[in-house]
């Protein structure tokens, strides 16, 4: 309060400021700025300082303007119930208010937590190496493409992706491909999953990376991943597989189907629904170790011979290698990775597998109920689904989605007569309401 005129987060009393200025030998703080007059700013922004209580009230009022909907939304952003212990532990100031572990001796705690996160991803992907985070699934996919560009000897410049791919993810991929002069092309899908014959037909020298995902953006589980892997292998394309950390706990191991790189989303553990904030997975085979983007934590020894952890292989990174770095990423999602690891530890393998199995069962059950309604067919694709599935509605989908919104439910409208519905433990208790609302609006 006595510091109301300045930042409340600087401790200087007037006397202290004066003493410090005297020590420096200047009269006032202005004298320390070396900004030529013409470009100096002496206007104001018109931002009124507020108390923390005022801001809490103000933001609470703002966020109340979001409608109170029960969301059955997915398509790349998922959340499960996050146990309270995840918040309490990850919020510990030593984690939250530290930075990159440039001084490992004093940062063993976070380094070990990230090492453990990497190890969990190694188990889930079956690959040798996992980095300690990317921004999100989309940027991780982009980085996979640039890695493919670097490591593949083919003269190609094509990245092959499924025609059903989240538009935003594809847009990000295009931006990463732009700089590497790569072109993104799609392969067709057959009833919700990859048309492997079409892929085989299209594959060839010009393809540096072949990307498939399971579950797909529509929640379908790919059934022929190994076959796709074989195509990639034969044509010397990098096989990048997109998935989700929860799904990975039950799906066939990416390594077993021949994946060279796994990208995807791990924020479905640890993060609540957060407007799309994510945690990108990046794992790959040992061969590409020196081409991995992002940070890696490795085990070593300290001067006493005790096991110790440190960031390693930093010559891949931009702060050493500059324009020859494997990626421009610097600040990453370390704290989110910590949260995902704590969440995984809290669940244990049992809990994680249960959660994943429920993602299959709940989706199947809800699809069947919606299918029972007249005017709707679900799931549209005759596949195994994970969390979500497409629904055909006889009426125009956008209108149905809007009507459902009026009833308090949010679903995706993905095409003229297609909706998409995602069910997790968070909304599974509200499916009766959703089905009733569907019945009412169809």
């Amino acid at each position, binding site marked *: 309060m006595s510091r109301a005129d300045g930042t409340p987060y600087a401790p200087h009393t007037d006397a202290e400021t004066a*003493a410090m200025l005297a020590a420096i030998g200047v009269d006032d703080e202005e004298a320390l700025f070396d900004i030529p007059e013409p470009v100096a700013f002496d206007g104001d922004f018109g931002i009124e300082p507020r108390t923390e209580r005022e801001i809490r009230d103000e933001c609470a009022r703002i966020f109340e303007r979001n409608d109170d909907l029960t969301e059955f939304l997915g398509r790349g952003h998922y959340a499960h119930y996050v146990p309270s212990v995840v918040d309490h532990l990850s919020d510990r100031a030593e*984690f939250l208010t530290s930075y990159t572990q440039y001084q490992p001796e004093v940062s063993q705690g976070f380094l070990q937590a990230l090492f453990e996160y990497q190890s969990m991803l190694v188990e889930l992907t079956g690959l040798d190496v996992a980095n300690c985070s990317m921004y999100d699934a989309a940027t991780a996919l982009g980085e996979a493409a640039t890695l493919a560009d670097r490591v593949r000897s083919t003269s190609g410049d094509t990245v092959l992706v499924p025609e059903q791919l989240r538009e935003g993810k594809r847009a990000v991929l295009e931006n*990463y491909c732009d700089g590497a002069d790569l072109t993104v092309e799609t392969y067709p899908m057959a009833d919700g999953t990859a048309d492997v014959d079409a892929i085989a037909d299209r594959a060839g020298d010009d393809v540096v990376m072949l990307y498939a995902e399971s579950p797909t953006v529509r929640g379908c589980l790919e059934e022929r991943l190994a076959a796709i892997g074989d195509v990639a292998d034969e044509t010397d394309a990098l096989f990048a597989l997109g998935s989700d950390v929860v799904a990975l706990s039950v799906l066939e191991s990416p390594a077993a189907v021949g994946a060279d790189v796994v990208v995807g989303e791990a924020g479905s553990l640890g993060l609540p629904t957060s*407007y799309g904030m994510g945690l990108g997975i990046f794992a790959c085979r040992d061969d590409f170790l020196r081409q991995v983007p992002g940070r890696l934590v490795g085990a070593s020894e300290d001067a006493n011979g005790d096991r110790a952890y440190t960031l390693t292989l930093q010559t891949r990174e931009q702060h050493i290698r500059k324009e020859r770095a494997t990626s421009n990423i610097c600040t990453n999602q*370390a*704290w989110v990775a910590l949260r995902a690891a704590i969440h995984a530890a809290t669940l244990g393998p049992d809990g994680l597998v249960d959660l994943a199995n429920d993602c299959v069962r709940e989706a199947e059950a809800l699809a069947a109920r919606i299918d029972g309604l007249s005017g709707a067919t679900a799931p549209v694709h005759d596949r195994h689904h994970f969390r979500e599935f497409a629904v055909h509605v006889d009426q125009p989908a956008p209108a149905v989605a809007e009507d459902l919104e009026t009833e308090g439910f949010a679903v995706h409208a993905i095409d003229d007569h297609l909706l998409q519905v995602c069910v997790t433990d968070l909304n599974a208790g509200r499916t009766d309401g959703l089905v009733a609302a569907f019945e009412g609006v169809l």
Partner: protein
Amino acid sequence: MIHDQANYERGDEDVREPLLSEKGQETVDVREDSPLPEDLTRDELTLPNPSEPETARHYTRLSQMNWAIDAGPYPLGSCTMKYNPKFTEDVAADPNAAVHPDRSGRSAQGNLELQYRLQKMLADVGGMDAVTLQPPAGAAGELTGILVTKAYHEHHGNDRSEVVIPASAHGTNFATAATAGYDVVELPSGEDGRVDLEALEAAVGDETAALMLTNPNTVGLFERDITEIADIVHDAGGLLYYDGANLNALLGRGRPGDMGFDVMHYNVHKTFATPHGGGGPGAGPVGVVDELAPFLPTPRVRESTEGSGYERFEPAHTIGRVHGFAGNWLVLIKAYAYIARLGDEGLADAAAKAVLNANYLAERIDLDVPHGPFHHEFAATASDRDAADVAKRMLDFGVHPPTTKWPEMVPEAMLTEPTEIEGQSSLDDLAEAFNLAYADTDEALDAAPNRTAAARIDQVGAARDPRLSWQALDAE
């Protein structure tokens, strides 16, 4: 000040707190209960299965073995490690803000409003006309800005192949330019540590898409010739990119937009005090002048063109997307709360105190600072000592050392940025740590640190024989 860091060590096994895997794993038969056919599933999954109390202890102990701003000074140059006001965590935790990004704009008016307000605040602070919040970190902001630049040039039928970057710039600038497909033209630093106008003249030309500049630069010096620099670049048809990592020094004192910059990123985890989280998440919003606004990522948020409220829209020539959704939302909320808390005067005072602190600290240390006048950070030189060793020794004195050996224009650089949050006494502690370490014997430096959880770590060995998972350790 002496700091003994907490340590939990199993002497018998030469490990600190054991790995979660060493405390007990469980193997689950995945197929047993699976609703999926066998050929879709793995047969088993092996992961740690601690009880909640074990989990709580594990991470509590790990946290105690980790330095942080809330423990003490953390003057990493270029990183702007500020105190992160606690209430911003509460604001970000509002369950009403926890909505899915695919919500209709109509049903997410609250989020749109906050996005709109933050876009506007940032535009005002940077002197920019339009802002996107999508980039999830500073480097992502750079890539966004450079891709916008590229799209702008291409839109004007202007294919350019080079980005000019001062040698002293942060590695992300170089890597970003390369990622965007540009050739990097490195600009040697001038004698005085700033951009040399002649060298610049020589470097720019028809192929120059942009000059990326940090201002104050990475040793805290303001580019006094910024107007001339802007003219040179603009005259060559290039754009001027502002790396916002050092914006903290300029808050309320100078705006990139007023200096001729066309595009900039903001490092909200630096300037606007959102937590660094052990390496992230951050956020790197990008601001541009009007001419570049049509190229920004989609969607942006504006006031509704019809009726009240806010709406998303796609800029006319958008580059598309740089993040799958709306960026690091929780981080953006905290930045909004921080800016609102400080207001005009608080922001200007933050800059003033950050500069005061850097100058006071430089005054107090026995190391030379070759360049000046610097602002919020300075690069001292350890001269004939090894900067990295001096840093290790500093760890014993209850402070985190500065960034070392960068930028290279200062030999054995110790790039120091105390930020505004330190008071005189903690700056004195920092100075003492500097001076004691700097004056210490070679043997003492070699043997340091002594009071940290781990003694000096073999980083060369870690890279030579990479063991990146507990599976790799087990395989030995």
